[in-house]
């Protein structure tokens, strides 16, 4: 005859529904279920067209790698590829140089910080199309800048500002600047204020403190900003098409051109190259310590 055993307080069933057991297969499915409407939407309107477009590079007109093989000897493609890469690099470095001082000011500001942020974000919320038109108004042959220079008597004839490589770069830097400022400012804000103090106390001048402490510690933010700006610049279409030089054709412009001429296979191949380039940059970015973290906290 056995003695009845009392259930100890720690036995299963005693504390129920206190902690969600995330190892349970059912509970693990909950986040996916919550995200499923969006996932279905993205699959239908985004992933499927992208895959279809990329497939064209392989099966148009018949299954082969001919499109990719042809790229290496394609003079137009190579020129466009290097222009795209060069423009993106120039814009990225232009953004770093212009954004860093602003980010520094933003991270130091106390009462004026919301105002500075507003000034940075206001154009950010304006359509790229509108901003590109604005640059056309500013840079045009009879635009604001030329008219002003003429009125001041500094020039006799209007300068050719619009439809130049420089115009593309200026407009793209303007549009992409917030993507550089915010991660850098965020990285600067996260630097413990006692670190610059420690450096001063140890004999570093304000410039020495910046060079040896603040700048190195802001590098994850700089790298994150460069990554964002570079990848976004790779795919720019409207701005270079509107304000750029007619000889400066970027990859996305070439893709659009080919689609218009119904060269789907070639367009798909170019798209694959552009995508691979962007993914490669993101991959490289992940290797730099602190970058993924800086990207994650950008919006804070």
């Amino acid at each position: 005859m056995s003695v009845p055993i009392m259930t100890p307080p720690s036995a299963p069933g005693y504390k129920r529904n206190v902690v969600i057991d995330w190892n349970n297969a059912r509970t693990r499915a909950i986040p996916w279920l919550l995200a499923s409407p969006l996932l279905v939407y993205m699959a239908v309107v985004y992933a499927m067209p992208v895959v279809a477009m990329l497939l064209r590079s392989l099966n148009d007109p018949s299954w082969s790698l001919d499109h990719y093989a042809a790229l290496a000897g394609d003079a137009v493609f190579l020129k466009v590829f290097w222009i795209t890469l060069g423009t993106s690099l120039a814009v990225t470095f232009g953004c770093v140089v212009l954004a860093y001082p602003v980010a520094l000011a933003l991270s130091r500001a106390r009462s004026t910080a919301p105002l500075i942020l507003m000034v940075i974000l206001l154009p950010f919320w304006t359509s790229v199309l509108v901003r590109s038109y604005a640059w056309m108004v500013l840079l045009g042959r009879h635009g604001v800048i030329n008219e002003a220079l003429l009125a001041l008597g500094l020039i006799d004839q209007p300068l050719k500002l619009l439809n130049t490589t420089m115009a593309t770069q200026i407009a793209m830097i303007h549009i992409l600047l917030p993507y550089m400022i915010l991660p850098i400012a965020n990285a600067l804000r996260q630097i413990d204020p006692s670190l610059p103090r420690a450096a001063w106390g140890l004999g570093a001048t304000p410039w020495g403190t910046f060079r040896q402490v603040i700048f190195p510690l802001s590098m994850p933010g700089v790298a994150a900003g460069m990554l964002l700006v570079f990848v976004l610049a790779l795919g720019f279409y409207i701005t270079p098409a509107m304000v750029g030089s007619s000889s400066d054709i970027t990859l996305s412009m070439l893709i659009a051109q080919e689609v218009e001429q119904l060269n789907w296979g070639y367009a798909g191949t170019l798209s694959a190259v552009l995508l691979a380039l962007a993914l490669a940059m993101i991959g490289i970015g992940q290797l730099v310590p602190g970058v993924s973290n800086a990207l994650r906290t950008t919006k804070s």
Partner: protein
Amino acid sequence: MEQALRFPARSGDDNRVRGASVSLTNLVKSYGGVTAVAGVSLDIRSGEFLTLLGPSGCGKTTTLMMIAGFESPSIGDIAIDGASVTAMPPYRRNIGMVFQNYALFPHLTAAENIGFSLKQRGVPKAERARLVSEALELVQLSTYGERYPRQLSGGQQQRVAVARAIVFKPRLLLMDEPLGALDKKLREDLQIEMRRLHAELGITFILVTHDQDEALIMSDRIAVMNEGKIAQIGRPVDLYDRPCNRFVAGFIGQSNFLPAVVCGLEGDVVVTKCQGVLVRAVTSQRPAIGAEVSVTIRPERLRFADSTTERASSANCLNVTVTEAVFAGERWRYVLSSDSGGSMVLNEASGAMIRRRAVGESAEITWSVADTILV
């Protein structure tokens, strides 16, 4: 170890440097309408270990930051060795500083952190490496030079911070709650180690803490601060035995406060009427007859009187009832109430030789007049 911190630029073979003397004259710091420091005057002697002790918000850290040069005083002057440094930027003051969170540079190794100040001063690389390894040895971290701060424990980070603050041989070392983030056991070890370093280096130390035990153990002198002012300054034993006001008596150690009325003076001793009996107390003030005052006694200075205790004329006595008895390890803590209703705490060592008192038991307590302070 003796020549561990010899600095080549200094002449002479004596490793011990003369510490800096610091004098603060009527220092005031206000932010907008808030006054953080409200007139602090203080002379810190060469080679002294001085602690600024007080509750948070008392202005002790602000005072330290002004000495370091990170904050500039609204009014007043700071002089080091007699020369005013009020207008001098921090990087030219040559003061070592240990921060509350250590403020180690996360992108530099322990050795690079320690060598930072030497690099700013243009010390050649080979010399720098030698001084850094000697400083690491001094704080017993010789093999940790190549580690980054995140790879070190809290106690090790604290040692690196100390090594970094003294490697360039400053004559003044400031420390802002340097042990605050460590656990109790480690804190006690490091308190002893900081004292050893102070004796070894011979330089002036200024410590900021809210921990009265730390202040009592480490300091030559303590300046107790409250509401932006120095409430009292003196040796630890003086502050403990002769607090000059109620704030100091309450902040350092525990104290019983009993209301009393002055009824006479016998030389340096004040006779008061307290809890219905005559209680004699010592004071530095000269209170008027009839003045309402407060009598302060430390709980461990009260004793239960028994038949064998001789009644010295230098002792005060009071009849009480035990209302609470709490065991606290090395001592019993009794809460007593006097016949006229006053409540006080008595601490008695625990042990088999000492008779335990029961709650509700009546007793007579006695304590020395010298331990009775009028505040």
